[in-house]
């Protein structure tokens, strides 16, 4: 009955009545007492029957189909497998009772497992190689664009999966592994033909397509576990092995794509190479070199311009070009390279190289500061509030790449002072915005002096109203206002002790008293070289309002009424040195508005000249501004150097205080890491170390010349002195 049942089972479904009958028979056979218990026999016969069926019926049928072409074999295999699954299921149903007790009791494989095992050893193991080959061949056909029977393939794949008896070993070893090999071979061939003929973008499009296809393939009919492995093979063969060739291809490589702004191609390149471990590094490298070379072009342009043009501290074309370059590639990195950190670093490294390459007399730090000056001063660039903020933002980005940030700060501070003192600042808010951007970059300490300067002005304007009232009380003939500056915030200025006309000294006296009253402990020092004055000059019948410096006003006063004075007489009367008087008189007698006549006439002031007010002076304008050359340098390089020495020593002291003893190279390294605003070369640091050795704060270690110790005991005087300044 068993045998019949099986034969029938492969074609018909059993009806419920028949099912119950067979089930009960089995039940009865298994529940009788020994020696009438047939469990063991039943179990054995189950196995034998299946075996026989497989070897006698199924196997020959399959053998007949081999050699007739892959699809036919596969179809037959699928048919037999499907039958076997049905048979297995029904047998299990019939003999469930065996499963429940006999099998469990004797720890035997379940009926289902036994059935599978029989199929595996008698059918599958013999056919697996051939059918795998058949599948692979179909896959390759599909890759070439042909339509294949995906359902058939999928069902065979399921066979392989099932043959693992719960695990994927059979699938992995018998199907996946040869699949990976054949895939590799396939793509090696493809790559070899594409790489020769195709441009990089075209190749990448093909590679991208292939990867997408393979991914779909897995979803369609392979096991999910294969996806990573399969794609990895493709990535290795299509991308990894030819990465450098693709990146460096003549006429279509990465550099060329960058130069031609091929955004879509770059994006694809980025996406594909980011699949590889370290795949982006060579690409970022090329990007960095490219940006560097663009930057160097800008620098070369400046160099060329300097050959014909005058070298000044102002080169807006240069600064704007750098800003534009930076903005452009900031954008490219964002859109084409997903803002990836490797490319951000490439941009940064390229700009650190460019920004610190100085050409001509003036450093880039100075050029950048002057650019800010243009943006921030009134009468500079005409920009909206938003444009101002944008420009400042971008300049600060460039600034972040500067090594000599302290030099920038010094120059910026000087220019800021000039703007503030001459009331040439376009917007107080804009000044604050810039300072706060610098503060965000560099910290409070960096901008403290600048903020101090703004604070002084704010205080000044408050106090002005108070003082104005006081001045009125004294019936002063002159309109007079004073700006008090806190030493230390502001740059140091020359302050010639010029002899002032009485009216001026009187005003000064009033202020001095009023100020002393308010702030008893503070000492005032007058800096006349910074003052401005408005002088009404009458030349013949016409009068003019002249905006001049205090010093110019004093000189004009001396020449009032048509007097003639020689250079020497003026110098003595006003108590001014040649170095001050010369530029002063030049501005009045050799500039645009020659309100003073110089004899003999020339464009240079000599100490033998004599001066008198110009009786013939006339101008269409009623209000004249007569500028004078600044008496002070644009900034103090020496001061920057001194501050650096102090900063280096402070860093050494801090470090050695904590470590007590340190090896030379480590000390140098730690000092460098602590200095944020400039980067001294090791010799400069060594000189400071020697200075500290000389002052007996440090000593060389007795047994090791390469080591430093803090002297014991360290002289406290030295420490306090340095730390206060730091």
């Amino acid at each position, binding site marked *: 009955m068993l045998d019949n049942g099986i034969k029938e089972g492969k074609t018909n479904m059993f009806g419920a009545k028949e099912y119950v009958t067979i089930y009960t028979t089995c039940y009865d056979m298994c529940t009788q007492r020994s020696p009438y218990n047939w469990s063991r026999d039943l179990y054995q016969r189950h196995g034998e029957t299946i075996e026989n069926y497989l070897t006698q019926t199924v196997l020959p049928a399959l053998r007949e189909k081999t050699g007739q072409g892959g699809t036919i074999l596969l179809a037959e295999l699928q048919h037999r497998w499907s039958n076997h699954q049905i048979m297995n299921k029904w047998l299990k149903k019939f003999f469930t009772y065996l499963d429940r007790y006999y099998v469990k009791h004797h720890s035997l494989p379940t009926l289902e497992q036994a059935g599978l095992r029989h199929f595996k050893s008698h059918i599958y193991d013999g056919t697996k190689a051939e059918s795998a080959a058949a599948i692979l061949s179909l896959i390759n056909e599909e890759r070439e664009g042909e339509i294949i029977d995906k359902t058939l393939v999928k069902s065979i794949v399921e066979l392989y999966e099932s043959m693992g008896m719960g695990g994927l070993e059979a699938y992995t070893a018998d199907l996946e592994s040869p699949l990976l090999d054949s895939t590799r071979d396939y793509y090696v061939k493809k790559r070899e033909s594409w790489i020769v003929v195709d441009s990089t973008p075209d190749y990448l499009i093909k590679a991208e397509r292939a990867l997408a296809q393979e991914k779909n393939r897995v979803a369609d009919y392979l096991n999910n576990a294969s996806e990573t492995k399969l794609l990895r093979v493709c990535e290795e063969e299509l991308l990894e092995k030819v990465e450098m060739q693709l990146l460096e291809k003549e006429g279509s490589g990465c550099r060329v794509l960058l130069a031609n702004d091929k955004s879509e191609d770059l994006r694809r390149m980025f996406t594909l190479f980011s699949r590889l471990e370290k795949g982006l590094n060579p690409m970022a490298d090329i990007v960095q070199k490219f940006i560097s070379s663009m930057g160097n072009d800008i620098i070369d342009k400046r160099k060329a311009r300097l050959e014909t043009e005058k070298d000044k501290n102002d080169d807006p074309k240069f600064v704007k070009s750098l800003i534009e370059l930076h903005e452009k590639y900031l954008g490219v990195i964002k859109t084409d390279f997903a803002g990836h950190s490797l490319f951000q670093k490439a941009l940064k490294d390229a700009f650190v190289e460019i920004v610190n390459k100085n050409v001509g007399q003036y450093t880039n730090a100075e050029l950048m500061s002057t650019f800010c000056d243009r943006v921030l001063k009134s009468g500079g660039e005409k920009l909206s509030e938003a444009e101002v903020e944008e420009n400042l933002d971008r300049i600060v980005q460039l600034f972040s790449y500067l090594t000599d940030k302290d030099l920038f700060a010094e120059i910026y501070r000087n220019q800021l002072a000039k703007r503030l003192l001459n009331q040439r600042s376009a917007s107080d808010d804009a000044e604050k915005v810039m300072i706060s951007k610098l503060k965000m970059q560099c910290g409070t300490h960096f901008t403290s002096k600048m903020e101090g300067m703004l604070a002084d002005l704010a205080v000044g304007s408050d106090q002005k109203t108070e003082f104005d009232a006081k001045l009125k009380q004294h019936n002063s003939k002159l309109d007079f206002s004073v700006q008090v500056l806190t030493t230390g915030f502001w740059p140091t200025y020359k302050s010639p002790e010029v002899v002032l006309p009485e009216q001026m000294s009187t005003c000064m006296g009033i202020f001095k008293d009023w100020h002393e009253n308010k702030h008893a402990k503070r000492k005032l020092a007058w800096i006349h070289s910074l003052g401005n004055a408005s002088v009404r000059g009458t030349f013949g019948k016409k009068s003019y309002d002249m905006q001049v410096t205090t010093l110019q006003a004093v000189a004009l006063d001396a020449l009032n009424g048509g007097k003639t004075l020689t250079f020497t007489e003026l110098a003595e009367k006003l108590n001014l040195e040649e170095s001050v008087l010369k530029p002063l008189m030049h501005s009045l007698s050799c500039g645009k508005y020659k309100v003073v006549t110089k004899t003999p006439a020339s464009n240079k002031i000599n100490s033998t000249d004599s001066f008198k007010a110009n009786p013939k002076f006339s101008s269409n304008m009623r209000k004249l501004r007569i500028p004078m050359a600044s008496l002070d340098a644009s900034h103090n390089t020496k001061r920057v150097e001194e501050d650096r020495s102090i900063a280096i020593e402070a860093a050494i002291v801090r470090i050695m205080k904590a470590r007590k003893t340190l090896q*030379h*190279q480590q000390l140098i390294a730690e000092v460098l890491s602590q200095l944020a605003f400039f980067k001294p070369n*090791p*010799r400069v640091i*060594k*000189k400071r170390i*020697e200075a500290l*050795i*000389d002052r007996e704060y440090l000593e*060389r270690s007795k047994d090791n*010349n*390469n*080591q*430093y110790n803090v002297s014991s005991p360290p002289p406290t005087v030295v420490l306090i002195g340095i730390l206060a300044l730091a």
Partner: protein
Amino acid sequence: ETSIYHTETTLLGISMLCDDLGIDALEDIRVLVLLWKLGANEKPAQISKEEWKKGCIELRVDSMAKFKALLPALDTGFLDRTEFKDFFKFCFQFNRQGTHRTLDKDLVTALIPMTLKDRVPSKRLSTFCDFLTESKDESYSRITLDQWTSFLDFCYEVEDIADYDEATSAWPVLIDEYVEYLEELEKK
């Protein structure tokens, strides 16, 4: 008996002593060795009464004859490296003038050959003095104690400048620049 030399504790007294001993106070290094051994330490170019007394007792000299007998032992060849280092440092300290903590370059170029003769190859001594003399660097117009002692250490440790590595060197910048000078010489 020796106290006659000690009414004057300064160089005058010392030079009187030298005359009596028959050695040249300015050129003979044994003067310095003697002063060092006597323990002159408080002030440069002087030896105090206490130091003199103590030193004479330690060296067991209480007569001119004994001083004369001591002379041969004042040869620096008898000193080992550590002792010599100490003596060499003394040479610097003793020759300071007034309140200065450094030595004038010219004095240094005179002292170096005198004190280091036979201990350092003469080529090294002469090139170093040439280097100092030719240097236009303002900061080298005066030499510090650290630079002085480092020069000796340098001569001991670096015989062949090919071994010199500035990148890792903790030597004073003076020595770095001296090595550069030597390298330039070699090229010519």
